[in-house]
Structures are given as C-alpha cells and as structure tokens.
C-alpha cells in the first residue's frame, strides 16, 4: 500500500508537466489539409500558442458546431465557403468580434463581417467559372466555353457536370449567380435548357472539377481556383470565367460561441488576417484571392481584376429561407426533369 502511494506520488510528479504557458487554441479548419497544417505551425511559431487543428469540410463543421452547441469543443472555425458561416451566425453558433486588422481588408471581406453582425469575416474569395479538359475538347473539335451562353451549345450534350445544390454549396452559388445575373425567371429557363447538356449533378461540389481532370467529363461548373490546383498536378485542365459575369464565394472565419479559449481564438483570428498568414494558402497550392490587400499573390492565381463579377448579394442569398426556396424550386423545375 505504502509502495503504491509512493508510486502514485512519483507518477503525479512525472505527469504534472506544466501546460504551455501560452495555452492552446482548438481550430476547426475547412480549407485543404496542407494549408491547415502550415497555418497551425506558423501560428504556433509566431505566438507560442499550441494549435490543436482538426480538418473537416464546412458542411461537416457546421453539423459538428450544432451538435456541440451546448458544450463547445472548438474555438475558431477557419475557412470554408461563406454560406455555412453566415448560417452559423444566423443560428447563433458563433460570436461577434471586431478585429483591429479589419481596416487592411478588401471591401468584400468587410461586408461579410457587417452582413453577419460581426460574427464572421472573409479570409479569401474564389470566383465561379468553368473548368474544361483540353484533351477531350480537342478530340471533339470543340471550342472552349467562354460564356454562360456557350454551355447551351448542342456539341456539349452530355459533357457538362455541376454539383447538386441539395448537397453542395458550390452549386448553390452557381444558381444564385445566375439568378442575380439574368433574373429569376430567365435563370431557371437557362438551367432547364442546360439540363440537356448535363450528364450528372454530383453530390459533392469539388467532384466535377476532379472529373474534368480525370477525363470523365469535358466541362464542369466549379470554382476556378480548384482548376489551377489540378493543372499544377499535371492534368490537362484549363479554366475560364464567364463573359457575362460571375459570382463568387467568400471563404470565412468565425469564433465559436462559448469558446473555452476565447482570448487565444481572437489572437488566431487577428493573425489569420495578416498577409503573412494569408500567403500560406498559395504555398499550399490553393489559389483563392486573399482578403488582406497587401498579401502577395502568385502569378498563376486567378485574379478578380481579370473577371467580370456580379454584385453578389451574400446577405440576401446567404439566408436559409432564400436558399431553401431556390433549392426546392430547382428541384421541382430542373433537377427532376427526365434525362434527354
């Protein structure tokens, strides 16, 4: 017994290593994994705060935040498309915070913050466009699509893939873009016509671009920066942004409501808005447009200055009610149509 106590005592001493003086921060990360890892490492280097990072898609993260709402385990939610962040703000899963770095950001990033009542902020943006497989198009002797109108050409019959808005935020951005560009009636008319050329509405938003890369389909409706990543991996992929104008997503960041390490969460938040932190995306071969104006951007990244952008109303189209309405309309009028 005495021996047991002594052993336990020694164990207690051995185990009672002091926790890092700077503490920890738990980050739910919804960008690509290399980016997450380098962000964790660099932040740790810069501040001495230990980062516990788990990488999950934005849909999975908001599902987890909802499930954990009574007893949050995460502190910051870094990255992922803006709509779920806006939804989290709407459902009171995240906390408002005004970062001193806000002045250095592009207006669209700040607007994301004001739209959500200060509960989220833009960290990068990515434009919607087309990805196409140059080899397949050459084989078909078809010209690469440059405008939304091109997608209706008969030569692209069964060659286009886009995601299903029921499951994918990317597809929803596409619908919202078309609605803002053409007006609701015309947009749905357009999508009905395009339906004849679509071979599948995939469940995941990134799947169409991967299908283009592997030659499973000729054209995809995707975020253009994903195409750059595939092209750099050696696939015959090129991208274009539609001549009529296009929409974009705003990758966002939020602080979890009731975060256990709120102070460190704010430190991470401020740091993630600096140019030093934002250039890590490009280093991890992700080519979205960073939200801090002074972040350096590599030449291969798509630039907003080269595109025609619609004045995308993130606040209106990020609301759950509007989203539900448009998606069920799409379901009834487009998704359920027979295959030609």
């Amino acid at each position: 017994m005495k021996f047991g106590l002594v052993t336990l005592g020694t164990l207690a001493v051995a185990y009672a290593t002091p926790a890092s003086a700077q503490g920890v921060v738990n980050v739910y990360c919804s960008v690509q994994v290399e980016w997450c890892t380098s962000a964790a490492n660099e932040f740790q280097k810069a501040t001495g705060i230990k980062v516990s990072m788990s990488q999950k898609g934005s849909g999975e993260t908001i599902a987890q935040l909802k499930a954990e709402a009574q007893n949050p385990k995460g502190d910051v939610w870094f990255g992922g498309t803006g709509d779920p962040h806006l939804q989290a703000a709407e459902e009171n899963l995240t906390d408002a915070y005004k970062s001193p770095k806000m002045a250095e950001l592009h207006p669209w990033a700040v607007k994301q913050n004001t739209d959500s009542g200060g509960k989220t902020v833009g960290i990068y943006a990515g434009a919607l466009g087309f990805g196409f497989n140059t080899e397949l198009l050459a084989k078909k002797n078809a010209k690469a699509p440059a405008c939304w109108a091109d997608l209706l050409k008969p030569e692209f019959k069964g060659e286009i893939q886009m995601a299903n808005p029921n499951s994918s935020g990317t597809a929803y951005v596409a619908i919202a873009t078309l609605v803002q560009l053409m007006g609701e009636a015309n947009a749905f008319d357009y999508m009905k016509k395009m339906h004849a050329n679509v071979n599948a509405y995939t469940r995941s938003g990134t799947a169409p671009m991967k299908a283009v890369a592997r030659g499973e389909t000729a054209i995809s409706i995707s975020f253009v920066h994903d195409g750059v990543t595939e092209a750099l991996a050696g696939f015959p992929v090129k991208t274009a942004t539609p001549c009529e104008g296009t929409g974009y997503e705003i990758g966002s960041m939020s602080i979890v409501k009731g975060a256990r390490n709120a102070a460190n969460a704010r430190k991470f938040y401020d740091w993630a808005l600096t140019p030093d932190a934002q250039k890590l995306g490009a280093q991890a071969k992700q080519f979205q447009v960073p939200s801090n104006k002074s972040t350096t951007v590599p030449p291969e990244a798509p630039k907003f200055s080269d595109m025609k952008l619609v004045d995308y109303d993130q606040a209106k189209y990020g609301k759950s009610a509007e989203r539900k309405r448009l998606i069920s309309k799409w379901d009834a009028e487009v998704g359920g149509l027979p295959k030609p």
Partner: protein
Amino acid sequence: MASRAPLAWTVAGLLAAVALPWYALQEGLDSGAWLPGLWASEDHAGGLAQILVHGKWWLAPTLATLVACLVVSLVPATRERRGTWLVIASALGIAAFVAQGLAIGLRGWSAEWLATAFGELAGRQVGIGAGAAVASIALLALLSIGLALRGAFGGDAFVAGAITTVTASIVLFTAWPILRILVQAFQNGDGVFMPALLIERLAAEKIWTLRCLWGGGRCGVAWNTLVLALCCGAGTTALGLAFALIATRTGFRFKRTLRVLTVLPIITPPFVIGLALILVFGRSGLVNQLLDWSFGIQATRWIYGFQGVLLAQLFAFTPVAFLVLIGVVEGVSPTLEEAAQTLRADRWSTFATVSLPLMRPGLANAFLVGFIESIADFGNPIVLGGDYGVLSTEIYFAVVGAQLDYGRAAALGILLLAFALGAFFLQRRVVGQGSYATISGKGDSGLPTPLPDAARRAAQWVALPWAAFTFVLYGFAFVGGLVKVWGRDYTPTLDHYAKAFSIERTADGLLWSGAAWNSFWTTVKLAAIAAPLTAALGLIAAWILVRQRFAGRAALEFATMLSFAVPGTVIGVAYVFAFNVPPIEITGTAMIIVLCFVFRNMPVGVRAGVAAMSQIDRSLDEASATLRGRAPQTLVYVVLPLLRPAIVGALVYGFVRAVTTVSAVVFLVTAEYELATTYIILRVINGDYGLAIAYSCALIVLMLAVILLIQLAVGERRLGRRIAPPLGGRA
C-alpha cells in the same frame, strides 16, 4: 459463495464512491493529480465528499442504495429473500443514478420544466468519472446477482451478468445515441415537438416517386436504395456461397490464394475499389480507351450510377458473405449427406435437398448482412453514384450539405431503419423454427461429399473470373502508389511512400518524420483495443441470443443490429449529440472512437456467432451441464473451441473495420487522435491519389499481417472429421 459475490461488488462500489473522483477529470485519471483533492476539491472529490462537502445532495439516493446492498449481503437470509432485496435496492439505485444524471447537467437542471417545477438549482455537474462509473457498474452487477438469486436465468449469476452487461452496453452506446437523433425527426428547426412533421417528411414525393418506370425522370431514393440492396444481398450471397463451396468442397488447388483474395476487398480502405473501378471502366479508363482505340466505340459513362455502385458493393461485401458462409458450409455434417446417398440420392439431389437447406441459416444471415451493408454503405455511392442517390448519401447531405436539416436526416434514418427491420424479420421467417444443428457430440461423421459436377462448375465459373478480376483491380491499385500521377504520368517513383513513411536517423535516435506515422500508430492502437472487445461482446451476445431463453430476447437481437443499419455519418453525429454533454462526456477522447468501433462492428460478430452457434447441437451444452459444468465452463471449454471460425471472423472483422471505417468517425477524430482513413480521405479530396494509395497499400499489408496473426493465435476448429484423401487430378 453466492453471498460473497454481492458483498464484493458492494464493497467495490462503496470504495469507488469514497476513493475515486466521482466526476470526469479534465486532465485524465492517469495524472494522479486528483489524489490530494479527493475530499476538499470540488473537481476531484469522491461521491461521499460531493454529498457532504460540495452540496451535491442528488447523489445521496444512489449511495444510500449501495449501503442498503451492503446490509443485505451481510444479514443472513434465504437465497430468495436476499435476491429480492438486492434487486429492489440495486434497481432503485440505478434509477436514482440515471435520473439525476439526465436531470442535472452543466447548467443545473437540463430541462426547462424541471426548473419551473422545482425552482432554480444551485449546483451543476459535469460528466461522470471513474468513481461514478465503478459505482454504477457495481449496481448493475448487484442487480444481476439479485435476479439470479431469485432464480431468473436458470439461477446462473454468470448468465444474468452476461445478459445485463450486453443489454446495458447496447442501450447506452447504441440505442441511446440513435434515439437522441431520431427524436429530431419529430421536431422542427427550433426543437418544437411536432409529430405531423414526420409524416410530411416521410411522404415526400422525392422519396417515393416511381417516375423512372414511365415517362423518364428519376425514381425516389427509397426505391433506389431498396433495389440496390436486394441486388447486393442476392449477389453477395451467391458469390460468397460459390467461394465457400469451392474452398471447402472441391479439390481446387489454390484454396489459400482464393481465401486471401476474397479477404482483400474488406481490408481495402473504402474508396480504393471505387477509384480502381473508375480507372478500369471509367470514360478515360482502360476498357473504354481500348474500345475507342481498337473499334472506335465512343467512350461512355456507364460506370456511374446503379451498375457501378452495385459492382463496387459486390466487390466490397462478398467477402463478408464468404466469412459468414464458410463456417456454415464447413459445419454441415457429412453424416446427413452420407445418409442421403445411402438412400440412393444422387449427388445433385443430396446437395439440393440436404446440404443446401442445412445452410439456410447461413444463407439468410449472409443475405441479411449483404442487404444491410448495402443500405448503410456510403463510400461507394458517393464515388460512383453520379446521379443515382440512395438513402445513405441523402442522409449524409441532409446533415452536412447545403440543407443542414437534421429533421429530414432523422426521418430518412427512420426509413432506413424500417428497411433494415423488414429484412431482419424476413430473415427470421426464412430461417423459421427448424433445427439446423449438425455439430453434435457423436463421433466420426464421415467425409464431406464433393459437390455435384453442375454445382461445382457453376461455382467455379462464377468465382474464378471474379477472383481474376480482383487481381486486376488490385494490380492497378498497387501500381497507382508507385507512379507519379495516377492516370496521367506513369513515371515510376517511390516518392509517395517516402513522404508517408520516412524514418530519419538523427543524433537523438530515430525520427519518424513521415506524414502518415501519427495517424498510423493511433489507428493501430485503437483498432487493437477495439477488435477483442468487439469479438467478445459480439460472441457473448450471440451465445445469449441462441442459447438462453428470456423475455425481450427478440428486442435485444434487433437492438444488436441497430447500429449496423444506420449509416456511419448518422452514428457519428448521434455520438456527438449523446456524448458531448453530461452524464457521459467523452467527445474528443480516444474512448469514444473505440466505443464507436466496437458498437458499430459488433453486429457482424453477433451474426457470425449466431449462424455458427445454431449449428452446434444443444446436447453438447447439456452434456457439459450433466458433468456439472457451469455456464462459464461450458462456454469456455465446449462452445468457444467449436466457434473458432466465428471468433476469427469477429476478431478479423472487428480489427479490419476499425482500420477502414470512415464515415462514422469523421466527427469523432481530433487532431490528437487522427485516424488513417480520415487522413487518406483528405488526401483523396485533395486529389493526392498517389499518397492515398501508398498509404492504403501499407494498411492492407498491416491488416494481412494481423489476420494471419489472429488465425495463428486462435487456430482452426477441430471437428474430429476425417479429411478426404486428395482427389487427384480433379480441380
């Protein structure tokens, strides 16, 4: 003897209430830092101190019943009386324990009506810790001892304990989380209870439309799921049977190779089969390119949709059917077949009228497993489904997709459960009340009859091309890890392996610098803990279900299947819902991952055990009982050795599934406990197939090694049957 057991359990429970921290500790039990604060610190105090010093009066009833049990075990009484009092005291204790756990949480009362009924509560409590766990287990043990003393379960405390353990653990880790999430089907977005919503959600046209039969359009997901599952169940059973017959009843020379080959698909991380199928049959795949090049046939996308998913599922689940069937086919006693032949039945009618009907429980079980695996499968439909939606993908996207509609997910989950339930009852009807026992204590039972020629040829025609096909796919997968960019740049390289598994020699010793090592070791560790637990719990449950008669047996049997029928994602979210808040607060720990593995994979252990056990004649148990063997001895010395194939099956499956599960653990992994599959999935999402495949190959090698180890450790079942002399040139 009988009165010493309750005394021991009571003392254990009371000791735990005094000398272990009652609540969960932030820093974990192993740090030992709680010892000094056992009385004075609110975080670290034991149960008694919590009541006396820290004002947690609601723990008092539980501890009082433990004291009552102490009195009951010490006071002399008849068996019957002691049993009755033990049952009363411990049942009250458990009720009090559960009630306070559910009623009082992190912020005092956990429901509003409690606060209005009793007024604000000053105290609060976190999740249960070591002290509370041991005390509640002691109460459960006392309950089962009490029941046994009263003569329930044949008066056998071991049987009573086994039943209580299995029931309690299934209620806690399967039924409770699933209920938590299914309740959502009746609630609207704000958590208001509205039963009519369920009907509205279930009757949706999108689920049930039959438009594909006439006039084009797509059929509802319910029909898609059902058709796919029926085809998959039938297909896997037929293929599994063909392999099982070849492996046991023919002189086929490469049986061992065949066995390894059939096991390969289960030890493959889920999406590898899908990706390999795309590379072979996809539009830019080998077959299409070849057709295009040689005959100018336009490449098509036929692999995406029903056909592709079915093909991948057949690949993935045939081995499971094989594992279920092999024990059964081996177990069919040659005696009956010889008897039939003595009665002048030819080989074919012997096979058709004797052997095949005796395999019926195995066939029905294999079908059930194939059916349920198919409806719960997520990986294959997501990779190959294209437009073809099934319930599991629909549920996944209702939870994580753009809709974020838990209510819809739960309603679809109920539908999925209904399908599983239907299959389950159908299986019971098919197996019926007949007796399939062919392993009895009687001596030599003759030689297994070789298959009739027609059946043998059919089995070989089905199985051998399938095996060859498997070789092709795996060849592809293996090569994929050794080239630069799979499908594009076929320059050979070892880079992917180096990136994942490099080890550097530094001044301080070896540095495991590869990117995969962390998740690799976590996976190995957790799977190694989960596999034996899965097998043990599964086989004990099977033994209870087949050998013991008690009220609620059918309900228990169904409950064991529950977690299997629910798609992994739903289980994952359900676990977060149920175990993120007190009374049981274990999210973010390794424990929750292990529990998820165990309760998700246990059903296969149960099915294999039930199938195998219904073949073992009850007279063997009775013989053991006549020789004064008690239930534990019978189990250990008689039943278990005859169950060796089932044990191997359950252990292998438990380990392999723990290594290859993705969807269920996606919500449970943390940076600290990252798993191999979640790491690989991220690579795939990233388009980094080379590394994903290299890692998968390493996992396959690991699992093969573990399977061989398990085979060696458990050994083969010796039935005392003669082995047929080699059949010469017949193959």
